[in-house]
């Protein structure tokens, strides 16, 4: 199977869906002439022209709003917000308009668009260019939320996202753009709401999201040397969330760690932990532990940023604490 980078896999998804469906248009800052800050849209302006690859002014509210409107008008826009931090500028359009349109209209309106964005934790971008707050979207029913961790999933999930009839927030990880992985030749999509069980074991379940999937796999390999085997599960989409696969694993292992780059308070880990406790409290042999970022802004200093981030060592320590 050919190896592609995460960024190249995303570009293949965009290109294939643009060829497949003439209603797909891209819009965002620096996506055309500059080909994307992370070169995800390289070559697309040349291939599809400025009508379908639309550079915008620095106007996040207008980018998101125009994507909503274009979707209402019959297009399938893929809007890019350069950094997840900038999503707050256009959150009104996503959370208060797009997410509620189908419901508020009694099911009449459809707003099929994808909002692509990325978080740059781990890239020494400081407090205002590293934020990762996916759990905000748990509080906004009506959105689907995708967090791919591999090139394979990046491509397959983006294609699925573009074919959705609902608004989708597609959150990429900046540190993963250059990572490589196998991507099959030819057509495939990854359906939303299906966990990927990356590794199987018996002693502990590690649910990991986006960048921390790599850390969880590294941790699981090291734990094996100590005789501890782990299920490593990547939910891939948090809305919808495939809780069934997680519950099945927890029933087997009795122990759960949730790793995620967002801050611990009110994060992905909080929500998954709550649901597991509600559904399967009696299968737990130990407390649920979260390996997340601490409740503070992201520090700039490269040394401090590394100390701040969830990593394999922190996951290992959590597992040791549970198994002891």
């Amino acid at each position, binding site marked *: 199977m050919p190896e592609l980078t995460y960024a190249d896999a995303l570009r293949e998804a965009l290109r294939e869906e643009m060829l497949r469906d003439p209603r797909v248009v891209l819009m965002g800052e620096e996506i055309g002439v500059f080909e994307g800050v992370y070169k995800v849209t390289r070559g697309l302006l040349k291939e599809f022209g400025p009508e379908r690859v639309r550079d915008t*002014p620095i106007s996040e509210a207008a980018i998101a*709003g125009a994507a*909503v*409107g*274009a979707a209402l008008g019959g297009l399938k826009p893929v809007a890019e917000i350069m950094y997840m931090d900038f999503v707050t500028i256009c959150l009104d359009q996503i959370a208060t*308009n797009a997410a509620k349109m189908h419901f508020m*209209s*009694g099911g009449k*309106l459809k707003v099929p668009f994808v909002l692509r964005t990325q978080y740059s934790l781990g890239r020494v971008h400081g407090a205002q260019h590293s934020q990762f707050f996916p759990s905000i979207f748990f509080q906004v029913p009506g959105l689907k939320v995708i967090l791919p961790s591999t090139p394979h999933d990046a491509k397959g999930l983006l294609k699925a996202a573009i074919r959705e009839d609902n608004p989708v927030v597609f959150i990429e990880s900046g540190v993963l753009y250059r990572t490589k992985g196998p991507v099959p030749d030819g057509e495939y999509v990854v359906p939303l709401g299906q966990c990927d069980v990356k590794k199987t074991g018996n002693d502990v379940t590690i649910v990991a999201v986006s960048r921390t999937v790599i850390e969880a796999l590294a941790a699981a390999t090291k734990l094996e040397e100590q005789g501890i085997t782990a299920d490593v599960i990547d939910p891939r989409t948090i809305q919808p969330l495939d809780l069934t696969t997680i519950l099945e694993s927890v029933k087997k292992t009795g122990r759960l760690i949730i790793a995620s780059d967002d801050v611990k308070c009110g994060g992905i880990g909080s929500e998954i932990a709550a649901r597991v406790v509600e559904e399967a409290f009696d299968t737990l042999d130990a407390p649920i532990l979260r390996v997340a970022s601490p409740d503070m802004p992201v520090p700039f200093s490269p040394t401090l940023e590394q100390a701040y981030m969830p990593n394999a060592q922190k996951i290992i320590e959590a597992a040791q604490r549970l198994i002891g």
Partner: protein
Amino acid sequence: MLRKMIEIRRFEERVERLFLQEGALIGPSHLYLGEEAVAAGAIGALNDDDLTTSTYRGHGHAIAKGAPMKPLMAELFGKSTGTCKGLGGSMHIAIYPEKGSMYATAIVGSGIPIATGVGLALQKEGKRRVAMTFFGDGASNTGAFHEGINLASVWKVPVIFVCENNMYAMSTRADYAVAAESVAARAQAYKMRGMVADGNDPVSVYLAAKEAIGLARNGQGPTLLECMTYKLHGHGVYDRGDYRPKEEVEAWLKRDPIKGLEANLLKANLATQGDFDRIEKEVAAEVEGAVTFAKASPVLPFDELAEYVYVRQ
């Protein structure tokens, strides 16, 4: 146009009574009383297949675009037969895609970039359709307004941005809060046409809108059309607008858009008092029919709500 204006006026008067006297309706509701000439004139200049977007003051836009009174009234009652099956309410009543009324937002200014996007879709479609969006003077102070009309101008999309300048954003006067000669003057900053119409004169609005629509259809981009008008009462149905100077209110009441149009029609021998009486009678029956229909309609079962959160793939 007169018919539409009377429909809006009598519908809104009935809604006001349902709120204030009969206690049959609750929740926020922002009436279009006094502004009828804007919706009737501007939407009257559109083709049926053109698209509009509206706001929380949207009853008038919906009626002007052709939404029937029965589902509109039912929406106010929160009934399953409403324009949004009772899930939207007064502030989203103008979501009626069946007649090209595509959206109504309750967040001031947020519909403006959405209209730019609708315009983009129509531009790409290439069938010379246009989009028209409504908002107030207050919305012209939001970031979404400035970002939305800038992008519309950059992309030269076929959108008519209709500002209903009723001089007040709640109690805040436009001559205090809008730091510009006019809302229309703001268009110049974005290389966009700015036009001003008398929002209490449907003919003035119609002619200005017709010109802007024609230009948009011919690929000559968007227009910001400011219509000067005035609310009969206050911001919402419970607000009497007491903060407005009495003399100002009286002066505008003398410029009632419906009475003004009727006088002009009589003067030009284009209609008779009998015509007006006939319209009034028909509209009154339609409004009452809508109230009866709304009251008799069922509420959506709560168990079904989850079906409306996501489109099923």
